[in-house]
């Protein structure tokens, strides 16, 4: 391990990792689904609720000021974490799914008409497919798809023709199934050259890499809190100020208005315009604490640690199981994160995950909310082990040992 990254100290920060089930330690390999939470996040949320909690933006009392400062402070932390220009370009949503729906609903309805083209890729999560399908059904927009290479990267040979005439290109920065890290800047440049905007689903990318929305030249970027050590219930839409300003509101209600009359309403300024109703206040505080925590580790160190872990995982699994294991996605570590989807012998992923559970090895089995990609892979499901800052070689060995156990049961 890198001298700059002490995984034992990281593990000690996560209370749940000291839990034993049936006398065995927990081997949590499902962080691409949702990450565990460090003591620092849990404490920040508890302290806030015990000491400072109140509604925000509305009242003059001391608590309301403290609460509003904490909430807006979290927005500032998010802005700095992704190197956005302005705090009010950061919109808090319920999750990344809602953020993508916000873009499709608000930007899409204001800018797309029948026949307009939106380009997606075969590796998208359902959250970056279904909102566009809904718009296609309602508006008659046309979807085009970037296909994949055999090793699970985007096949960009015909990107120019796919983007020709397109209004938007919405793509994942990192695949939640294959672990593929896409060339975001190349893709945003291609989108802009074609006159399209670039919408980046960065759910799997932000928790594991340095994110710079300006260097990416993105127009919109979404991610969730719960995958980067923060709580569930809050996500982020970052958007370019001029785009957000020109968009109609998404949800209507309190907080998003400047004025409401019997004959209509006018919108508040950014970011309130897109934050109708009481927001996830405590969750924002938790997200801010999670960002502080990751900044202390250093995102460059996080990425280095994960490259080492995924390298060891691939090496261990391939050397122990050879042709009996098929790991999907790129082998080049430069373009892959620490998310491993695999097929093991002929054992169905659901059965695999059941057997691994006996050893407290938590992996996801299923279609990973990416059914179009599953069809490309020719599978109905895969097993997926995903590693994060608190995983080490012991977890890789525990996974491999548990896979041996699965072979014994199914004796294939």
């Amino acid at each position: 391990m890198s001298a700059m990254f002490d995984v034992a100290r990281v593990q000690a920060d996560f209370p749940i990792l000291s839990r034993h089930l049936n006398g065995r330690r927990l081997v949590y390999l499902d962080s691409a689904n949702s990450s565990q939470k460090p003591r620092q996040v849990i404490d920040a949320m508890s302290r806030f609720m015990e000491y400072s909690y109140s509604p925000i933006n509305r009242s003059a009392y001391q608590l309301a000021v403290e609460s509003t400062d904490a909430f807006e402070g979290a927005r500032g932390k998010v802005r700095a974490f992704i190197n956005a220009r302005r705090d009010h370009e950061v919109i808090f949503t319920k999750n990344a799914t809602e953020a993508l729906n916000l873009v499709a609903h608000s930007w899409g309805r204001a800018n797309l008409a029948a026949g307009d083209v939106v380009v997606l890729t075969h590796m998208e999560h359902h959250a970056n497919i279904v909102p566009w399908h809904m718009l296609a059904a309602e508006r008659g927009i046309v979807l085009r798809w970037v296909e994949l290479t055999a090793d699970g990267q985007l096949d960009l040979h015909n990107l120019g023709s796919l983007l020709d005439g397109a209004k938007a290109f919405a793509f994942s920065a990192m695949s939640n199934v294959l672990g593929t890290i896409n060339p975001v800047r190349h893709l945003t440049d291609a989108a802009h050259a074609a006159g399209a905007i670039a919408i980046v689903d960065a759910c799997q990318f932000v928790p594991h890499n340095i994110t710079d929305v300006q260097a990416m030249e993105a127009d919109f970027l979404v991610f969730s809190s719960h995958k980067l050590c923060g709580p569930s219930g809050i996500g982020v839409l970052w958007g370019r100020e001029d785009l957000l300003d020109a968009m109609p509101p998404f949800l209507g209600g309190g907080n998003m208005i400047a004025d409401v009359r019997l004959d209509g309403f006018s919108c508040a300024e950014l970011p309130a315009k897109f934050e109708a109703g009481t927001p996830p206040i405590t969750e924002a505080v938790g997200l801010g604490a999670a960002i502080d925590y990751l900044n202390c580790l250093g995102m460059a160190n996080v990425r280095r640690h994960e490259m080492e872990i995924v390298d060891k995982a691939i090496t261990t699994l391939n050397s122990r199981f050879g042709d009996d294991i098929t790991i999907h996605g790129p082998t080049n570590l430069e373009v892959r994160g620490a998310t491993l989807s695999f097929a093991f012998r002929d054992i169905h992923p659901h059965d695999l995950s059941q057997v691994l559970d006996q050893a407290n090895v938590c992996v996801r089995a299923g279609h990973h909310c990416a059914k179009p990609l599953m069809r490309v892979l020719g599978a109905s499901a895969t097993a997926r082990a995903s590693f994060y800052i608190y995983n080490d070689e012991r977890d890789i060995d525990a996974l491999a040992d548990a896979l041996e156990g699965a072979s014994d049961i199914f004796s294939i």
Partner: protein
Amino acid sequence: MPGLEDLYREIILDHYRTPRNRGQLETPPAVVAEGHNPLCGDEIQVYLLVDDEGMIADVKVSGQGCSISQSSASMMTQAVKGKPAAEARRIVRAFKAMMSLPDEDAADDGPVNLGDLEALQGVVKFPVRIKCATLAWNTFTQCLDHSVSSA
């Protein structure tokens, strides 16, 4: 935690490795229904042929799934084939009751011998897998409903 031996009984693994009544039937005269397990992505098709006397003349299953869904489907086909449709519905209700999914209509059913299917009762200890075990049965019920409405 319940042990895996409760789940992966030998007879289940046998049906998984050597599924009975796999394949397709010509539609029509048979009817087909498709079932999805939205949690894991499994998809199966059940084909059902009910004859003029209301007997289940043939039933086949295609598609893919885990050991529990595939073995349950295989055992189901054996349990219902050659039986009157009404009897098949009784077996469905009894099986779902074993999966802790009782049906109001089951009150008058009396005892139903599930035979090999009893091996699947361990699934109840793994609640996530109940959907796997019942996938074929729900799909089969759709087929029965289609057969009745088209008869």
